[in-house]
Each structure stands twice: as C-alpha cells, then as structure tokens.
C-alpha cells in the first residue's frame, strides 16, 4: 500500500514536471497530495494527513483557476523532462531502499521524488502557474518530511505546509512590466 502511494507520488511529481497546462498541473498536484496524505496516514500521522490533504486539495482546485488551458502533457520538448523524471526516480529508489536502512523506504522515496521533481520543475519553467505549482508541491513535500521518524512536530509542519500550498495556489498570476 505504501509502495503504491510512493509510486503515485512519483507519478504526480513526474506529471508536474512534464505538464504545461493547468489541468495537468492540477492533476499532478492532486496525485502528490493524495500520495503524501496516504503515506502520512499509513505512518500513523492522521492529523497531519488530513492537514496535507486539505491544503493540497485546495491547492489543486485553485490551480484549475489560472494557467495555460488544457493538460499540456507530452508537449514538444518534454522528452528530456520525462527522462529526467525517470532518472530522478531511479536515484531516489537507490537512496531510499539501497543506501538508507530501516523501515519506511516508501516514505523516503516519496519525499525524495516530490522535492527533487518539484525542484527540477522550478529550474525549467517560464510560466508563472507552473512555477507556483512546483512551489506548492515543494511545500507539501517539505511539510511531509517532518512525518519521517523521528518526528516531534510533524503536525505543525503539515498544517503549515498545507496552508502555504493553498496560499501559493491562491496567489494571482503576475506578469512582468511590459510583458
């Protein structure tokens, strides 16, 4: 179950990395939210899971308001990003399962891919909506890190992450002067 959730997290991150349209971005954000919430729930962090779910769902819903229309998946030029998503997934798998020890490898894998894929998207986007989606994903990923053991303030981090993610998606788009 947790492995599935981890895989969903990777799919969600990969969708965000590849998608250019608001629907694709919202889908990716939704998948990541569901995955993180599921993993947090499975780890016994129920309240944190709810906080993440609420914030992420709001963020995903708000993403549908603005941005380029449509899904924007597999646009021309997206092949390198698909390859990058696969590479990141493999590397994260190596760190999470092979290099590190102990239970919770799906958790570790999920947090790695969510943060790495959102970072990769931030480095390779020009569209404000895409950048904000990546930032919201990043917020959820970081907030969920706190639920990794030992986690003393996981709930606080999850609540703040949910609020930040929702708040980021609620912000209006900004165009530069003269753009």
């Amino acid at each position, binding site marked *: 179950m947790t492995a599935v959730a981890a895989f969903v997290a990777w799919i969600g991150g990969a969708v965000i990395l590849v998608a250019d349209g608001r629907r694709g971005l919202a889908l990716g954000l939704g998948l990541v939210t569901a995955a993180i919430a599921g993993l947090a729930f499975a780890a016994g962090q129920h309240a944190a899971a709810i906080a993440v779910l609420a914030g992420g769902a709001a963020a995903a819903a708000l993403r549908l308001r603005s941005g380029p229309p449509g899904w924007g998946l597999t646009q021309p030029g997206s092949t390198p990003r698909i390859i990058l998503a696969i590479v990141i997934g493999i590397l994260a798998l190596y760190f999470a399962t092979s290099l590190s020890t102990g239970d919770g490898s799906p958790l570790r894998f999920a947090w790695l891919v969510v943060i790495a894929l959102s970072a990769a998207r931030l480095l390779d986007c020009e569209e404000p909506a895409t950048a904000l989606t990546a930032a919201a994903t*990043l917020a959820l990923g970081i907030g969920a890190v706190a639920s990794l053991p030992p986690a003393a303030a996981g709930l606080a981090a999850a609540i703040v*992450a949910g609020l*930040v993610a929702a*708040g980021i998606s609620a*912000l209006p788009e900004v165009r530069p*002067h003269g753009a």
Partner: protein
Amino acid sequence: MEPELAVALPAAGAAFAVALRPRPRLALILGAVLGAGGVAAVLLATPGAASNLLGITLSLSAAGRSMLIVAAISLAFVVILAPVNAERSALLRWGLAGLAGMAGIAAAPTLEVSVLVLLALVVLQATVEGGRPHARRLRAPAFAVALIGLGLVFARMAGPPVLERLAAVGLVAGLTAALGALPYMHEFDADERTATSPIPWIAFVGPVLAIVVITRTHELVPSAAGAVGAMLIGLGLLNIVWGCVAAWRTELPGAAWRYSFIADWGLAMCGFGLGVAEGEAGALLILYAILLTRLPLYLWSRQPMRERAQTDRPVNLLVAAALAGSAPFAGFPARILLLRAATSVFWPFALVLAAALLLWIPSSLRLGRTMGMPKGRQMAGIAVALAFSLALGLYPQPLLLLAGR
C-alpha cells in the same frame, strides 16, 4: 506568547499597509505601531523560552532574537530617514513582511517549518510586480528551499555516514542558494526595485536564516560537523575572493554593491565554518554590520547611482572606510575575532584570511564614491549608519551578549 506576537504583529502591520495603500500616511502610522508592537514582543521574549499558544511550540534563540532586534532597528531608521525617492509606506510594508517572516523562521520549532515560512516569503516576493519574469524571480530562492528540503530528507534517513554528509551538502548549499551567494547567485538587475531584487535575501532575511539553518544543521547532523565547517569555509573563501574582486571590477555600481554583500557573507560563512565561539561571534558582527550599515548605505546610494553622481569627499571616504572593515568601524573587531578563531583552529588559514581581508579596499573606495554628494535626509541616514558601525566597532559587547556570546 511573545514569539506569536513577534510574528503576528509585523504580519498584521504589513497586511494593513497593503490594504491601506491608497492612504499611505495611515498605512505608515498603523504599520509603524504594529511593527513596534512586534519588536516589543521580541524584546520581551526570553531566549529559549517556549510558547505554545497556537498548538505550535515557538521559541526564539538568543542569536535569532538579537538579529531580529537589529533588523528592526535597521528597518526603523531606513523608514524614518528614507531615501528621497522612496515611498516610506512601501519600505515599511516590505520591511514588516520580511520581519514577520524572519520572526517565523527564527521562532519555528523545526527547520521544516522555518523553510516553509521561507518558501512563503519567496513566493510572496515573486508575486510583486517587477521587471524580471515571475518564474525567474522564483527560481533561485525556491531552488534553495528544495535543496534544504533534500538535506532534511537525508538527515532523517538512517544509514551510512555518507547520508549525513549528503544532508550537510543539501543544507549548506541550500543556505548559500537562499542567500544568493556564489555559486548560487540569483539573477540581478541593478535597476530593479530593491524589494523585488535579490538584495532582501542577502541583506535582510539572510542573517536570521543563516543562524537558524546553521544551528539546526549542527543539531540534525552532528557527526557531519567537520564537513559542514569545511563547506562553509570553502564557499566562504570563494565568495570573499570573487565578491571583492567582482565588486571592484564589475561595470555597474549596483552590481558592485551586490558583490560587496556576497564578499561580506563569505567572511561570515568562514566565521560560522570555523566552529569556535570567536568565529561565530565574528560572523554575527559581520551580519549586524550588513543590517545596520551596508544595507542602509546601499539604499541611500541608489539615487546617486541613477544620477551617475560619484564624488570623493570626506563622507565618501568615511563610507569607504566603514565598508572596508577599517577601524574604528564594525568590520575591524569582526576581523580580529575571525583571525583569532582561525589562529586557534588552523593558523595557515589565518594567513589566507588576513591576506584576503585586504581585498575589501579597492571595492570599498569605489562603493564610497557611489554615495555621491549626500544632503539632507540622505546625509542624516549615512551619518546614522556610520554611527551604528562606529558603535559596533568600538563596543560590540552589548550586542554579542544579547546574542548569547
């Protein structure tokens, strides 16, 4: 409840200042009152004492508290003696938002929450209208947040020591990227408004962030302390050399100022990297000087830079002396502390550091000239900034005691 108020009151002040933009005077008064309330809360907060009013445990460390106080002082006198073409309420608005964010970063119970607050600030700043595209303004500081996040993930992983070292890489690189220091420099447009430029990260929010990240890093990955120190020193030296030389040789005066911040940060990073009390004290002094002297002087230099006014009068030379770290200004005791730390840890490094300290001079002379011929409020502001630097240079003990040194 002081930590909560330290976050909430400046945030409220910033929010009111935004809402009352059509009425700048009212915005200024209300923002000032709420900001002062926030500063009072910081002053009244006991270092290390936890507060759990909102279900989240907040507490301010001594160093973080001292940095918040210094940042508030800097904001206050920049607003009071605002540069001629700057709108006071706008300065206060952004300053209070930054201050609220800094309080949140400093008071947060874990590094994850601190970083989330940072991300919120990053996104807020990128949302303001500016010359550069939104995504590009967001890119560098958000990437910094991602790096810190990756560092946190590695820190939480159990396994071989290499994981802790990778965590250290993420945290240190993330901090460097958040500041906009080399090799993670943010894109910079010298003509851009200060509020939307990379300057707030390196000159206003950066000091508190650095204290929090470095303190938490030592708690999260104690066995990688050597690696953390080595990275900080290596990056610090890189920033010192490149920052000083670039500040001297770059074409644009505005870019020269940015590089001068980078050079100062290089020195602070070396101080933090040395891992002894004197080094940290020296680094704190450098950060105080950035907040109280270099940042305000940069703000007052913007108008003369636009007018291409460069002069060589006594005040320009005094500014150059303050920026160069010459006695009796704040940079000199900071350098003494750093030399002492370096000598006690590894004396050849002190030799390298001593040689590097001379690189500040040519760029400082250049930056001093960019102040032009100050008059009126600008002159008063420069005088206050130099007075702060003088006080810090002659008697830094009170601030260091405030920081728990």
